[in-house]
């Protein structure tokens, strides 16, 4: 037997294997077992969360449709200088027809048209219309094609058409991101959109501003409620707690629709105000389908997310702190402001993060009560996903939104410190 104390090498376990190895093996068993326990959840999260998000992030830069549909054309386009103002030569037209015949066979040319239509209006119909006629051409025998194509549609004789195809023929594009910040990818580089098309930056600003307003209103309304919850006798506090949680158990749509009933011009509030005489019948307040309506409804819906973290923090603030402050000569207000309030800040922080992040990506409520002036960026994303089918732009907008949230989270961590946040 080896004497463990006399040897000079690494410590050995009883069976002679190095102790480190033996320890790692012993721990590996435990780690594997622990991993097995969380494996179902891990797989679920990967499949349903991480993977789709990754896919979405990639979609915002992915642009291989042009290269894949028109490989020969793209290669020929490299030799053509768009800024010269001259049309490309016959070789390119031939390559284009060859590509198109293959694409039409596979029914991919309309998809390409749709993609290019995001960048240059008219491309979609150009591809669809030309497709029917190019189908009849044989790339081997029917050349030359330049004149024929210009005959089919005079847009093929327009430099811009080819310039657009060339600009968007890269595999990884920043075009969607440029679009998302009201710019566009042009042959001359990134340029701002014409004024009438610049809406997304404004929408981002509005989303941030309104989320901020909602967070602030939630703090103002939620703080006293949380304080009551934490300081009332248990029985009364429980009843109040049910009232706070009640909205959670009601459908989001029902709550939002209820606000519609309350706020509309023929709604409850206006009727009451007119009946009292505070508001003239012909000057009813406009409280819905604008920013006001969205802020009111979303504040109501997100309020529990503010109250609960605040409450759980306030519950841990011992009443003796206030007593101690008063015994030292502080008035009620001083005791609150110098002692209670600073101790409740972690709750406000937690609630604010929660409400702000939820608000910034909210969709249903602004969709129903927001009208045109009160919609959020998320409504625009939904539009691009389900109506305009411009998923790349939707993905870019979503990525920017995610980035903004992460950035704010980082700022918050720097300023307040995420360790100071208590959710319960």
């Amino acid at each position, binding site marked *: 037997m080896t004497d463990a104390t006399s040897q000079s090498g690494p410590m050995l376990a009883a069976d002679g294997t190095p102790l480190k190895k033996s320890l790692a093996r012993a721990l590996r068993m435990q780690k594997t077992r622990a991993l097995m326990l969380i494996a179902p959840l891990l797989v679920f999260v990967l499949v349903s969360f991480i993977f789709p998000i990754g896919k979405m992030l990639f979609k915002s830069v992915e642009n291989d449709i042009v290269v894949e549909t028109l490989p020969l054309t793209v290669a020929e386009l490299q030799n053509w200088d768009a800024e010269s103002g001259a049309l490309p030569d016959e070789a390119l037209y031939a390559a284009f027809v060859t590509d198109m015949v293959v694409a039409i066979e596979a029914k991919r040319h309309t998809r390409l048209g749709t993609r290019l239509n995001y960048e240059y209006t008219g491309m979609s119909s150009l591809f669809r219309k030309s497709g029917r006629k190019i189908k009849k051409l044989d790339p081997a025998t029917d050349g030359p094609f330049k004149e024929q194509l210009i005959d089919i549609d005079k847009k093929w004789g327009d430099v811009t058409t080819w310039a657009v195809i060339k600009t968007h023929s890269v595999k990884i594009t920043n075009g969607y991101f440029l679009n998302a910040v009201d710019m566009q990818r042009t042959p001359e580089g990134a340029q701002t959109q014409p004024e009438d098309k610049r809406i997304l930056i404004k929408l981002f600003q509005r989303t941030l501003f309104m989320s901020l307003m909602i967070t602030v209103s939630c703090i103002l309304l939620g703080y006293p409620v949380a304080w009551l919850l934490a300081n009332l006798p248990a029985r009364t506090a429980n009843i109040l707690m049910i009232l706070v949680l009640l909205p959670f158990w009601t459908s989001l749509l029902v709550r939002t629709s209820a606000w519609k009933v309350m706020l509309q011009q023929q709604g409850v509030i206006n009727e009451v105000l007119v009946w009292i005489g505070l508001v003239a019948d012909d000057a009813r307040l406009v409280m819905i389908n604008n920013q006001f309506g969205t802020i009111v409804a979303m504040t109501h819906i997100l309020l529990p997310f503010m109250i609960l973290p605040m409450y759980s923090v306030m519950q841990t603030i*011992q009443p003796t702190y206030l007593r101690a402050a*008063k*015994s030292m*000569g502080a*008035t009620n207000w001083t005791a609150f402001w*110098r002692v209670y309030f600073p101790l409740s800040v972690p709750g406000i922080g937690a609630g604010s993060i929660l409400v702000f992040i939820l608000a910034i990506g909210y969709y249903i409520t602004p969709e129903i009560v927001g009208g045109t002036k009160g919609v959020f960026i998320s409504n625009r994303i939904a539009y691009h996903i389900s109506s305009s089918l411009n998923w790349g732009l939707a993905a870019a907008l979503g990525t920017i939104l995610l980035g903004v949230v992460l950035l704010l989270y980082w700022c918050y961590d720097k300023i307040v410190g995420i360790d100071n946040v208590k959710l319960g």
Partner: protein
Amino acid sequence: MADSASNDAFVEFDRVQKSYDGETLVVKDLNLSLPKGEFLTMLGPSGSGKTTCLMMLAGFETATHGDIRLGGTSINNIPPHKRGIGMVFQNYALFPHMTIAENLSFPLEVRKMGKSAREEKIKRALDMVEMGAFGGRRPAQLSGGQQQRIALARALVFEPELVLMDEPLGALDKQLREKMQFEITNLAHNLGITTVYVTHDQTEALTMSDRVAVFDDGRIQQLDPPDTLYENPQNSFVAQFIGENNTLEGVVKEINNGIAIVELDDGELIDCKPVHESVKPGARTRVSIRPERVEYNKDRIQEGAHTLKAEVKEFIYMGDIFRTRLSVAGNDEFVIKTRNAPDVERLTPGQQIEIGWLPEDCRALDA
């Protein structure tokens, strides 16, 4: 007990009652007055009303009936922050978001004291509790004993004339507690502040106080200096609560020349000193004897002592003392303590011995 409205009374409770629910009284007819500079402890089991009394004095509870006076003026309607009473809380209540210096600065800031005056006072208060180097720390970075000192310094930094302490040593370990007991008493006496101290620990009460008020059932059962309290308990609650105590039950047969003859429940007759007013011929009584006043060594039993037969049940060697459990007059829980000395016999369970005590150490109290 309570000196009636004497002129030197600094703190005075005058017929104070307190009820929380309007049905039961937590504090029943409390009369208490203490002069300036006294260290008074309110001692009692939990629920005896001692903390309620302290909170009424601090202003966090209002008296249902009666008057509380501070320096001659009634403070019933003065809010806590205007009473100028320093207070040390059970869990110290140091503000966790402030440094030690900021904690101490708080009472001075609310008094709108200038910065230089504040700094000087904070320094002096920290030095007083030997924590001068800790001004920049946060409460969470200090040990329990250090937090305790800071809490004390904070209660004293604005120089109140009266300081209240609500079980301030409850969270400390035994050794630290004994050290702090000594320090708090010294500090209070050196500064000449009046102190009202609440505890349920009788050792603490006996070692620290000028006088102890023993609370039970919303009343002061006895208010006396520690030695009087221990040696001359006025009723069986106090006798039981303060120190260890043996109880024998019986009926008073007669009282002659200040000596009561009590027939114990097993027929034994013993001589006792009648203390409680209820001790009258024919009345039931509880006889209280301190364990250390009982002797079993024949040559130590004093002249005139009453002797009794006893059987040893248990003999425990505790180092400085021997603790012996005996069966005496039908009571199997009769405990005696004997100082360890070379000539003391060590007993074995089952042994039959004779024990003895002086009649004046045997006090007949209420049943």
